[in-house]
């Protein structure tokens, strides 16, 4: 018996390959593009597309760690407040005369600290769910941001800082390059390292993971800290693009981000889903929004469409399992060789 032999079901099949949720997303994406370019001649304009990409990519940096958090079967709804707080701290420090380079580093540190606090609270007080903990810190972080700036906006950053949000490298927006690099890094972390494997283990069965020597608490704290750090990265790009910052920036980002992750096929029950799905979902929602904006469909309609897509994302995997029940049944029916 060759235990390393992969069965037909386990091996490569074109049908199985294209039945994956990610292909569904790409299909929807192509559909959206087709409809949009049919409805508006300006949709496939390179400059327009480029500008649109630069607008919606800021929050995409948070989608990456949010994938890890949701695979852990946790959630973080404080990320938008973390964006606001780290942006405000940076702007405030710069206004006080701190060099921009230092202010940027402190911005990243503040974001990471916010995330660390979330993670620490979640592992320290296990009876509290991640929703409750991050709901509390969501209010607190935003509250501190308001205390620091009240209702003012702070701006006039150095000229070079604009590069983050507006710059190009070989004609490609810098933000897009940065996002792709980060996405690849996160995908490798999740799929190719022991750290990623342990994240999936915890999401699937936290008890068995603990019994297997996985440092569940440590991994959770690291992942939440990463989320805070990436929220600060979002703060940098957002502030650079807007040229100034206010305590109420990024309001509602947490729900956009979670929607993208769920649409990307990452199960809120934990343990399932891939980075690529969430990345496709980022562009899908981004271009959908841009296209609908071009043909003057109100923002509210967009919300309805995103809501419907989400319901689809949650339902389709279930339908798929039911539909392919006869296929799933096969391995169990087949005679399994037993010693007895």
């Amino acid at each position, binding site marked *: 018996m060759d*235990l390393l032999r992969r069965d037909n079901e386990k091996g490569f099949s074109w049908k199985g390959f294209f039945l994956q949720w990610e292909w569904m997303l790409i299909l929807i994406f192509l559909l959206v593009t087709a409809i949009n370019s049919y409805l508006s001649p300006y949709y496939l304009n390179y400059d327009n597309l480029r500008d649109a990409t630069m607008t919606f990519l800021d929050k995409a940096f948070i989608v990456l760690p949010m994938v890890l958090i949701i695979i852990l079967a946790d959630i973080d709804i404080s990320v938008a407040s973390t964006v606001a707080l780290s942006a405000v701290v940076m702007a405030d420090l710069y206004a006080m005369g701190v060099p921009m380079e230092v202010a940027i580093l402190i911005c990243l540190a503040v974001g990471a600290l916010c995330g660390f606090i979330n993670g620490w609270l979640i592992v320290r007080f296990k009876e509290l769910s991640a929703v409750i903990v991050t709901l509390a810190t969501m209010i607190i972080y935003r509250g501190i941001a308001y205390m620091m700036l009240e209702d003012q906006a702070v701006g006039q950053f150095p000229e070079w800082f604009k590069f983050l949000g507006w710059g190009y490298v070989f004609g490609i927006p810098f933000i897009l390059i940065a996002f792709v690099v980060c996405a690849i890094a996160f995908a490798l972390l999740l799929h190719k390292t022991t750290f990623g494997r342990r994240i999936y283990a915890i999401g699937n069965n936290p008890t068995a993971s603990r019994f297997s020597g996985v440092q569940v608490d440590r991994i959770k704290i690291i992942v939440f800290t990463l989320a805070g750090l990436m929220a600060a990265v979002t703060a940098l790009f957002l502030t650079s693009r807007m040229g100034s910052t206010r305590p109420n920036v990024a309001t509602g980002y947490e729900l956009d981000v979670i929607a993208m992750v769920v649409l990307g096929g990452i199960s809120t029950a934990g343990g399932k889903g891939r980075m690529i799905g969430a990345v496709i979902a980022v562009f899908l929602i981004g271009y959908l929004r841009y296209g609908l904006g071009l043909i003057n469909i109100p923002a509210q309609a967009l919300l309805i469409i995103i809501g419907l897509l989400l319901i689809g994302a949650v339902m389709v995997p279930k339908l798929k399992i039911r539909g392919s029940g006869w296929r799933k049944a096969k391995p169990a029916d087949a005679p399994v060789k037993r010693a007895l």
Partner: protein
Amino acid sequence: MSEYVLELRGITKTFPGVRALDHVHFQLKKGQIHALMGENGAGKSTFIKIITGVHRPDEGEIYFQGERVDINHPKDAQQLGIAAIYQHVTCFPDLSVTENIFMGHEKIDKGTKRLLWKQMHQEAQVLLTELGADFDPKTQMGALSVAQQQIVEIAKALSTNAKIIIMDEPTAALTKRESEELYRITEQLRDRGVSVIFISHRFEDMYRLASQVTVFRDSRYIGSWAINEISQEDLIVAMVGREITQLFPKKAAQIGEEVLRVDGLGRTGYFKNVSFTLHRGEILGLTGLVGAGRSEVCQAIFGLDALDAGKVFLKGKEIHIDNPLQAMELGIGYLPEDRQKQGLVLPWSISSNITLPAIGKYAKKGWLSRHKEDEAAKTLAQKLQVKARSIYDPVSSLSGGNQQKVVFAKLLTAQLDVIILDEPTKGVDVGAKSAIYEIISDLASQGYGILLVSSEMPEVIGMSDRIVVMREGRVTAVLDREEATQEAILEASMVSISPRNREQIAEARMI
């Protein structure tokens, strides 16, 4: 009318693969306190579930006050006046005592459907006073002690006019004084004409209260005696008097130097002053009844729970373990009791499960190497003879025995000296059991020190070189292979420390 308020004849209940009850009889008189005794897995729990309508018997008849009845649903049992009080009180901790008492049969105004709180509080007060309780019925249930919650459960049973009350190990979580209080209440119930089925592992409970005792063993009815007719020794024989027919593949192992020693381990509320030593090549059985604290001791040694007292020595050096990873790095592995919840990631493949504990070992600086992983998993799966088509099969598709082999394979990925096995054959069919015994025996002869936690007496006796018996969180006996009889083990699991054992324990600690 019949002499018996409840009579069961020829009750048989089969679950897939197990016969839980095999033509069992039981007779309960009005106003009688009837003790039901037996080892773990003797069929007591299933029996209660049949009486309370949770399970339906496959065969057999139930007579209630002389009339044939069918109890198909817990509601039927309730209507007949059968109530059960469990060891772990199943209550609504955030509701008041009154609400708990009247849950499911609230007093409601016929016209307005309004809840009649005043009336319910009054009635609850009357019931509690009768039972000698001094707390207010408006108290929140969660604020009461376990003993007080049990009184509420009894009051609840009385409020439904229960004629038969089943108490499943009610004294297990109580202090001596609280137990006395429970005895008094139970006697009071008896004097009112309520019949009580009392299940307990404590002989003192039974001698203090019961007038009749029925013994089950291996899903069968063994006998029923008036309490003054049977001695404690005879009772123990009745409970364990099976012949050990199964052969255990225990190899004569070379017992080497001491590898693990624990001294005076304690964890408040779970166990106290637990000491034993384990040598290379030795299989040390750790047994006792369910709830004796065996798993808790093991999980504390493995770093899953914190210890409050005591020392752990590994290869002569004192160690402090804060988490399982540390334990495995030091050389202690643990096979958990519940393989599906604690042992395996069910949707994952055999390969990924096997390599999970030592995933770092099969990676290059944190980068996964599928090839290395699969090779290692394949080697271990073959070594333990996991029967599957390939190591990419999900473990959820394997039989219980093969799943357990995968959990064993996980242990072998680490460099271990001590392997703690917590109920390694639980839920495994007979054939796979002997395969697992073979694995255990092999491991011992390879020089691992093995701590075998088990409730199955033949298994403990058949496999162990020495046996540590625990009762209510304490070590009550350390027996050598020669002196380890079923009777001796059961006595130590159920009776307080005898002088003979005390000496042995002292000796064992000296070694």
